[in-house]
């Protein structure tokens, strides 16, 4: 049975990708492992592991196509469009701003003339790659497309297809707590939040822990660079949210160095994360 673990953190730059790649790489030496880069805005795991990704498929989102021969310029489509992707001015053809469109379909339902049909717009791509025994699946949002979670949903569909080939699947999420992060938790049986003992790290950790409580997922905590700040504040949160610190990583110039050079990062005893 595959174990799916999501690595998250709230704040950016706490070491999510560092932990995810180090854990996945070490684990892949004696297990079949898939690493999923679900930080689709800015996927970086392939860079950390020096993997040349190859394209797997393109992700599309539906957008409306308006038949101007049928359109009577009634303005209904603009009226129902909540994202302001369709703008209607009296007696003028509707103006469509495709970047704003989330494909909800309200315009098509509202159009009394049946003048709206669907077409696809490209919003991103999925990639795959490997290094030694580790396989990577990675999603990449196209710039100026707003809806990251569509790409994450496609990653989830892909995971569903291939999950039985693996013993472990590690999902590296984006920073923050909004839609693409929640989508990345969907298949995970375990969530691990990577934090740092700074006021900002602690603040954002609390938001993630609140979110996990809301969606009924159990999350544990890894404290990165535990020796540079005040771990007391992290401990208070741990008690408040009834969770545990499962691993601590000291500040290390070696990690920073290998990171800046693009070498796979090694974290001593990282597999202990799984024993907890």
């Amino acid at each position, binding site marked *: 049975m595959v174990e799916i673990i999501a690595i998250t953190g709230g704040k950016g730059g706490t070491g999510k*990708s560092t932990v995810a790649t180090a854990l996945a790489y070490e684990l892949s030496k004696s297990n079949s492992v898939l690493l999923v880069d679900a930080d689709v805005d800015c996927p970086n795991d392939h860079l950390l592991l020096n993997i040349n990704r190859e394209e797997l498929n393109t992700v599309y989102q539906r957008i409306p196509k308006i038949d101007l021969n049928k359109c009577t310029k009634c303005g209904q489509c603009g009226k129902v469009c909540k994202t302001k992707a369709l703008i209607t001015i009296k007696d003028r053809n509707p103006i469509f701003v495709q970047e704003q469109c*989330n494909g*909800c379909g309200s315009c098509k339902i509202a159009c009394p003339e049946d003048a709206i049909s669907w077409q696809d717009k490209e919003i991103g791509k999925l990639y795959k790659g490997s290094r030694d025994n580790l396989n990577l699946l990675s999603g990449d949002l196209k710039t100026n497309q707003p809806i990251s979670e569509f790409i994450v949903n496609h990653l989830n569909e892909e995971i569903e297809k291939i999950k039985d080939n693996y013993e472990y699947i590690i999902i590296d999420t984006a920073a923050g707590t*909004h839609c693409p992060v*929640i989508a990345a938790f969907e298949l995970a049986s375990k969530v691990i939040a990577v934090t740092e003992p*700074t006021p900002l790290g602690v603040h954002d950790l609390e938001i993630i822990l609140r979110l996990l409580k809301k*969606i009924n997922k159990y999350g544990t905590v890894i404290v990165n660079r535990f020796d540079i700040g005040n771990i007391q504040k992290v401990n208070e949160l741990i008690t408040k949210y009834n969770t545990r610190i499962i691993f601590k990583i000291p500040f290390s110039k070696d990690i920073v160095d290998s990171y800046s050079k693009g070498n796979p990062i090694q974290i001593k005893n990282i597999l202990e994360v799984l024993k907890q």
Partner: protein
Amino acid sequence: MKSIVVLSGKGGVGKSSIAASLAVALSKEKNIVCADCDVDASNLSLLFALSEDKYEEWNPLSTNQIATVDKEKCISCGQCIKTCYFKALKLKDNIPTVDEFGCEGCGACELICPANAIKLKDINNAHIGYTKTKYGFSIASAQLEPGNSGSGKVVAEVKKKANEISQKADILIVDSSAGIGCPVIASVTGNDYAIIVTEPTPSGFSDLKKALEVVNHFRIKKGIIINKFDLNNKFTEKICSFAEENQIKILKKIPFDKEFVHAMTKMIPIIDYNKKYEVLFDDIKNKVITEVIE
């Protein structure tokens, strides 16, 4: 008022730390206001030791709606479930139930329902407010309820709030979130200048290019700050030649220094924590003023 957005693509490269110290530097000669547009994890005010309990104002905000189903009227036809593009409606005991995290509030289900059983209702998806720093300027910020959607709209509200509380400000500093998706697009749009913060790592460089695409899309003038530049001098050179090829100004190279972490832990902007950074940020300030105002 001129507005400057600070963004990076990659998280944790120092956006907020740099925005905070630049704000302090600018406030010495200009009337400024800040908008913390990282509404998922709003942090800017924490760098000034101002947590939400110390805000002048902190109120619930609704920028979103979600669908609600009237069980009495529902005829269990399943049309709404078929229509929902976000798969936020699921049948439970023959009645559609709404997944509040999935619902985008688009209203397609309301439109399709033949029994008039679905209505959209407002939800409080965030808090919004502002606080005053000891340097005299204010920070508008918001915090999205964890898991709620609508971050782009909340970002727009924070910018509006900043304008409201400091109508006479000369400069608005917008601190964006990480990434390039919806909240970042909302942060970047409408600014006069963009500062892209990067670091000399493969990830930092890759995300710099992505952030740049967003900025270019809106045709905004921009400059780059390379943070922790001495971590990898070769890579810093690579970023510099990339900037030169694309005719983008490097505003500053900032060294790697644990003092940044110490300042953050003490919740004091680095410009005020270690005086040697006063010169550095004054220099950035002067360049930014030249770029933005002249």
